[in-house]
């Protein structure tokens, strides 16, 4: 009887020792490297090079990404606010970060090199919680192949989109679903004034075929020829062009709205030191040179954009943006936009 027990137990004991050894090894590994959970909305292909560059600079820290679209990551972070799971945020729209700051979810920290960043990329009010990385701006993806086919006129300004020739040819993001949509709408209200902006959108509405739920979708659809004109943002436009789509990237001369990608530390993180290292890196010139491979407008004055197919004229056409004010009027603008345009059937 005892023999049977012994025989049965021996493999168990061996297995238990093996498991214990495994845990010990993992624990030792964990002691050497601090693993931090980083929430991000960076593009998927940026994750690997960013992680690699940071971990090379700080071999004692390891990044574990949670990456999704801006809206999903923002919703998730806010839903988790009672018990935050992220240590830091690296690469999320400033609009979202300001929302977190307002709800007191971010830790105070100004990274090394913070003062060297361009003023508009620095959190201006104490306590300092975030710093900017790069910026992207509204842009129009104009499918030249479809335009030739349908004899569409060229586009230079936002007003050009009101031409009846574009009826049913335009796709834009629904501002109630997409941050890109909202930044475009808020820019129109700022450029054309409150009354002029709404009047413009009412006329544009007649030409819009679809309001999409994602900010990238309009450009992707224009690139595929599903629409002639997609109102989207420059980075996506440049990428579609690089992939070989026959799209021209139009930056309207009357000014474009823009958004910043920013980083911050999450309040209550148990890995403060590691998170601070990440912030120091994110604000560094080296990191900005990395961002420069994908974006043209950068936080660090020493970095120059090297992104392929990027419209050079964008930076000059950015409107003056007061992000706090844009965030403050969001609820009112979306309610009005929804009342006017959402849920109306498509024009025939």
């Amino acid at each position: 009887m005892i023999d049977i027990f012994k025989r049965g137990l021996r493999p168990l004991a061996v297995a238990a020792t093996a498991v214990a050894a495994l845990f010990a090894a993992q624990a030792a590994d964990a002691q050497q490297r601090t693993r931090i959970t980083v929430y991000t909305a960076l593009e998927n292909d940026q994750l690997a090079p960013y992680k690699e560059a940071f971990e090379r600079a700080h071999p004692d820290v390891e990044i574990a990404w949670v990456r999704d679209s801006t809206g999903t990551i923002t919703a998730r972070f806010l839903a988790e606010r009672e018990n935050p799971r992220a240590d830091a945020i690296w690469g999320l729209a400033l609009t979202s970060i300001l929302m977190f700051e307002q709800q007191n979810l971010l830790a105070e920290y100004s990274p090394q090199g913070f003062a060297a960043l361009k003023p508009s990329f620095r959190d201006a009010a104490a306590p300092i919680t975030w710093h900017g990385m790069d910026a992207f701006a509204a842009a129009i993806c104009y499918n030249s192949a479809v335009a030739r086919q349908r004899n569409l006129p060229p586009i230079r300004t936002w007003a050009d989109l009101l031409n009846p020739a574009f009826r049913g040819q335009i796709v834009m993001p629904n501002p109630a679903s997409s941050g890109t949509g909202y930044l475009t709408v808020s820019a129109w209200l700022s450029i054309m004034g409150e009354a002029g902006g709404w009047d413009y959108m009412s006329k544009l509405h007649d030409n819009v075929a679809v309001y999409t739920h994602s900010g990238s979708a309009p450009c992707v659809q224009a690139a595929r020829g599903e629409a002639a004109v997609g109102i989207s943002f420059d980075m996506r436009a440049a990428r579609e062009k690089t992939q070989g789509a026959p799209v021209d990237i139009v930056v309207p001369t009357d000014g474009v709205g823009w958004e910043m990608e920013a980083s911050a530390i999450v309040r209550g993180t148990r890995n403060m030191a590691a998170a601070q290292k990440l912030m120091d890196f994110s604000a560094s010139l080296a990191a900005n040179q990395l961002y420069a491979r994908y974006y043209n407008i950068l936080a660090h004055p020493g970095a120059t954009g090297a992104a392929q197919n990027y419209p050079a004229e964008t930076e000059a056409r950015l409107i003056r943006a007061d992000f706090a004010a844009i965030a403050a009027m969001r609820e009112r603008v979306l309610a009005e936009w929804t009342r006017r345009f959402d849920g109306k059937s498509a024009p025939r």
Partner: protein
Amino acid sequence: MFKRFDTDAIFQRLALLAVAAFLIVVLALPLGTLFEKSFRDRDGVWVGLANWVRYLETPSLVGSLWNTIWVSALATAIVVPLAFVYAYALTRTTMRWRGLFRAVGLVPILAPSLLPAISLIYLFGNQGFARWMLMGETVYGPIGIVIAQVFYCFPHAFLILATALSIADKRHYEAASVLGAGQTRIFLTVTLPGVKYGLVSAFFVVFTLVATDFGIPKVIGGRFNVLATDIYKQVVGQQNFEMGAVVGMVLLLPAMLAFAVDRWVAKRQVALLTARAVPYEPKPNAIRDRALFAFCALIAACILTLLGVAVWASFIQYWPWNTALTLRHYVFSNADASGWEAYWNSLQMSALVATFGTAAIGVGAWLVEKTKGAGILRGAVHLLAMIPLAVPGLVLGIAYIFFFNAPSNPLGFVYGTMAILVLNTIAHFYTVAHLTSLQALKQMDPEFESVSASLKVSVWRTAWRVTLPVASPAALDVWFYMFVNSMTTVSAVVFLYGPFTKLASVSIVNMDEAGFTASAAAMGVVVVLTSGFAKILHSLLAAYLAKRTQAWRAR
């Protein structure tokens, strides 16, 4: 002797309590936590019905509500009859290629819902090669939604109806025909009443599936608003969880209605498979069989076309400008950093969901159907089991964050792990699995239990020796259903995956959003192949089980 049955009864109640507790933890409490928010403002201050009033005053609400109802009703009205004829042909005729048609009929369930949407855009979009078929109408809107939903819901209706139709008592047909009833009369008075419960289930399952799905309207809905996209706008677009909770509660209404009707019909459903039943064997009928063969061939062709276009899309260099073929879209690390890792995570999660889900749901259904007493408790379990169908995944996902991430929750340790994905997915797909299990159990005569009882055999022994073997094909179906749905589920798990548990289905959506349509299609194809492989295993096992446990069906 009495003592024996008393312990049985006690254990049954304990088991029932355990199932009820499970459902409360994975379903009722998370949803309750979220819905409580619909009475609070963003700062957590109690505002009573203020959100509801504001929502009801939104002018677009009525539009979305009406759109949801008519699109769901239209899709249901198309899917259920098609699936019924298809299932009828497969179970009640001697037509050729039944096995093949059965497999093809299940194909859509293997595919992520983005796949038919991509196919439809390639077919009928503004650059689509078959857009002439829409005669100038746009695919972006109700047309696209209905076509994609019909494709996506077909297997759900087909599975329920095939289960219902596959069990019939030959004696009823013999009696009817001896009494001089014609084919039509037999169909109306014997066949239809026999599958009434299945039909009602199919109607409600499809209606609620269409009403709560947001993946398809998001991609192909254009500017056509439905309630599910309204929730997306509130939760993901504006991070307004309180209003999202309000819309989510509105969407629960069809399920509540379904529950009421289901109870009403169930009371009138008698067991088909009595202890003396003789299984029905279809007889050849050349005209009927040929007509039904043509019908099934047409449906199968439509399904395979949509799938085929997606497969083709995954090989195209850059649609529509460079249609040369390439394999590079299958190197997922180009489009998504998690690459193939996401696929392995999905595989692991699906296997866990299917195994634990089938066991838990099967036991739950058995307790609801086959035990006596504790009527309120059994009713409560059944009601809870009906809810998940009506809960949009988005709502369930956010609810899980609020519930499991709360600092005071002792279950908080599952947050961010594979376990929470498994629990969430079991809860998400509970209803159809529960209905299928129930359907199989309902058709077994309660006499088995009575006889066992009078022979002093414990209920457990009856369950193990009689019920489980008879129900094993249904259990296998449930396993397969849970597996394939877990492979494709997105909307709930998108809020719950951790740094090391990203799933293939989430990766598909991410890649499509970033413009990597072909890579998204490629991952979709890999998922279809995986689930197809699972289907083959399932068929082999089913054949084996049929030989081992279903011999009694043959006379």
